[in-house]
């Protein structure tokens, strides 16, 4: 049935006691950790006994079926029934006549199976990979089942019995899909595992997010402008760049290009790269970009920034973003990394949404949101064509930036993303 296997589970019998089978007729489907396979009969004859039910685990070497070989006229009781056995790695354990001789003449007895530890209890219930997969596919947890196989092993039969059973009356047994998306800086317990009501202290990154959003939302009057952009050329350019050996492991993505586009827009419209100082009633215009990238991390939302981003070319931008994102994801970002942002990009595309209207990080006046890039019908002249399209949104502080500047800025970044090659080459 496969190399290195010690056991298999009976999936379904294809014959019944009393059936007359031919040589190589399919007897049974068995499932191992590697594969589901059909076992063909090694003998022609009558089925006398099936040594197991669907769901049973059969060890290699254990009898599976007894066949009275055709042509033997003596009554069954006098005929030594031949027994087919499951065989794992090699022919050493099979019970064919040629091999019996060797076993009798001094082959070492099989070692006893190690006794499973009784304590501490196993963290996950004992089962086989196919059953684990089947349980997962059915959205149920093995924790809720009782194993009837050897050493409490959960068999296919157990799973099927569980699935057929009255699950709705025991809600605790229903496994809820657990999301890997953190909430409030932690991994929430699943719907049934967690308490009815849970209070989560607001600390750390979550607290920073709360303060930043409240400060920004209730001091800066937010407005937004957006544009759908045909980014087909950019997609093609990125694909072409990725095959360049010089890039090595650097990730050139739509974000890399957008970062350069936003820096270029800031150079053309420095008003985007400013902040409003309420205390002195002044607008501070900065002629150096600290480009913030909104990042969802296991601990919460943070906005690390690439300093002096306006001085970077494509390669150095790709490198800077790769490093910044890696450092942030690993929780190694420094205070300097996480402060000083002058203008921000949030890339919501990977989450599968078309667009978003983000809230500004406090102390900034412009944040661009990139939606997902999707193949869409696009009117080119009088033709409807399929293009890669992305929605670009600019949220801005309307105290500082008016609609005209915002629109020009969105159009500028949009034009850069639509055809990045000339802008990348000559700025």
């Amino acid at each position, binding site marked *: 049935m*496969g190399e290195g296997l010690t056991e298999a589970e009976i999936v379904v019998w294809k014959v019944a006691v009393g059936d007359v089978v031919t040589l190589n007729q399919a007897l049974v489907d068995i499932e191992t950790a*590697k*594969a589901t*396979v059909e076992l*063909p009969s090694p003998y022609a004859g009558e089925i006398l006994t099936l040594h197991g039910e669907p769901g049973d685990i059969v060890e290699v070497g254990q009898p599976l079926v007894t066949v009275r070989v055709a042509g033997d006229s003596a009554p069954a009781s006098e005929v030594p029934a031949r027994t*087919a*056995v499951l065989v794992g790695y090699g*022919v050493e*354990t099979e019970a064919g006549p*040629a091999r019996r001789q060797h076993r009798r003449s001094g082959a070492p007895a099989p070692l006893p199976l190690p006794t499973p530890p009784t304590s501490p209890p196993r963290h996950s219930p004992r089962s086989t990979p196919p059953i684990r997969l089947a349980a997962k596919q059915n959205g149920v947890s093995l924790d809720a089942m009782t194993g009837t196989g050897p050493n409490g092993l959960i068999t296919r039969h157990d799973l099927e019995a569980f699935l057929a059973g009255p699950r709705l009356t025991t809600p605790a047994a229903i496994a809820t899909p657990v999301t890997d998306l953190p909430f409030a800086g932690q991994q929430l317990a699943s719907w049934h595992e967690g308490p009815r009501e849970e209070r989560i202290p607001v600390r750390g990154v979550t607290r920073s997010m709360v303060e930043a959003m409240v400060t920004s939302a209730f001091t800066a009057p937010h407005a937004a402008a957006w544009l759908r952009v045909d980014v087909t050329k950019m997609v093609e350019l990125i694909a072409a760049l990725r095959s360049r050996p010089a890039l090595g492991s650097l990730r050139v993505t739509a974000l890399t290009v957008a970062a350069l586009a936003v820096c270029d827009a800031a150079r053309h419209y420095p008003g985007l790269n400013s902040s409003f100082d309420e205390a002195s009633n002044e607008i501070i215009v900065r002629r150096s970009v600290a480009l913030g990238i909104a990042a969802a991390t296991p601990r919460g939302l943070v906005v690390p920034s690439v300093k002096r981003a306006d001085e970077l070319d494509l390669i150095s931008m790709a490198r800077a973003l790769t490093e910044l994102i890696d450092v942030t994801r690993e929780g190694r970002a420094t205070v300097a990394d996480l402060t000083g942002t002058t203008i921000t990009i949030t890339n919501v595309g990977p989450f599968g949404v078309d667009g978003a209207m983000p809230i500004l990080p406090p102390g900034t006046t412009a944040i661009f949101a990139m939606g997902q890039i999707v193949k869409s019908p696009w009117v080119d002249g009088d033709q409807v064509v399929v293009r890669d399209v992305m929605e670009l949104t600019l949220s801005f502080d309307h105290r500082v930036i008016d609609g005209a500047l915002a629109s020009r800025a969105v159009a500028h970044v949009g034009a850069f993303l639509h055809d990045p090659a000339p802008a990348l080459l000559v700025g």
Partner: protein
Amino acid sequence: MLEEQLVQLLSPEGERVTHAQYPTTLNTDEIIALYRDMVIVRRLCNESTSLQRQGQLALWAPLQGQEAAQIGAGRALRTRDFSFPSYREHGVAWCRGISPAEILRLFRQVSHGGWDPQKYRHSVPTIVIGNQALNAVGYAMGVQRDGADEATMVFFGDGATSQGDVNEAFVWAAAFNAPVVFFVQNNQWAISEPTVRQSRIPLYRRAEGFGFPGIRVDGNDVLAVYEVASAALQLAREGGGPTLIEAYTYRMGAHTTSDDPTRYRFDADVEAWKHRDPIERVKAYLVRTQHITAAALTAINEEADVLAMELREAVLAMDGPDPLSIFDHVYADQHPLIDAGRQEMIDLGLGGVR
């Protein structure tokens, strides 16, 4: 597009196709003989799979779907040519005159090889992926130095083309213009890794970079494989140097009896390839052109069944080797550690009668 690149002489529907460079040289009897070969090796393969499932073989590497590639190439070899297989070339072994039982000795684990390579001019199976390509080129270079009128053919799979050994073999073969034919059966799957993940270009085009011709043949068309392989072998015998033949085919079954292809590929792909079956298309051709009778088709199937039963009996009768033979052939000469190991086995009573 695929069809345009392939050399094909018999369509999947069994219609004859003409090809400017490769006219068919086979007469009806020869085509029927190829059909018989394919039916027999498929039947023997099915029996071998059953024997493995019944615990009589440790492992089996089925060839289903690749019968035309193996029989076409195997029958193109001349008696004096030398061939180097991987572990799936049961069809080639059959063509070389090796008995089915001898083929199974390795899979029964009673032998490290199974036959005398010199007797059949066919090396024992190489399990290490692609290693035989270097062996074959070295052998071909020897043939070249002997000035013999022989060709060497080496068989490997698409996965092996990602191996260093195969690429080194290409370099050596090109550098020395060795009389070798590289025969890659592109069955689309290196266990669970599809060919498209391993090569950006069709495999046959790799040859151009090494400086020798490459050609892609419909690996499910036994007539085309035979002609393409014959021409490449003749080129090698005449001093024309190496050729890479890519037989474009599909592994219909598992990689070996130890894996489950339904876990990594789609049934729809397999279904599509069923319509390209190598045996059915020859049968369709022979029946439509009334070159074969129903009785003759039945006789071939019955012959295959008889061979399968003979194979089963032979396998069941195979006894294991003397345990002490494990120490043989480790070193050409005596070695004190090997001698000590052998003696230890004897002292423990684990040896046979020696």
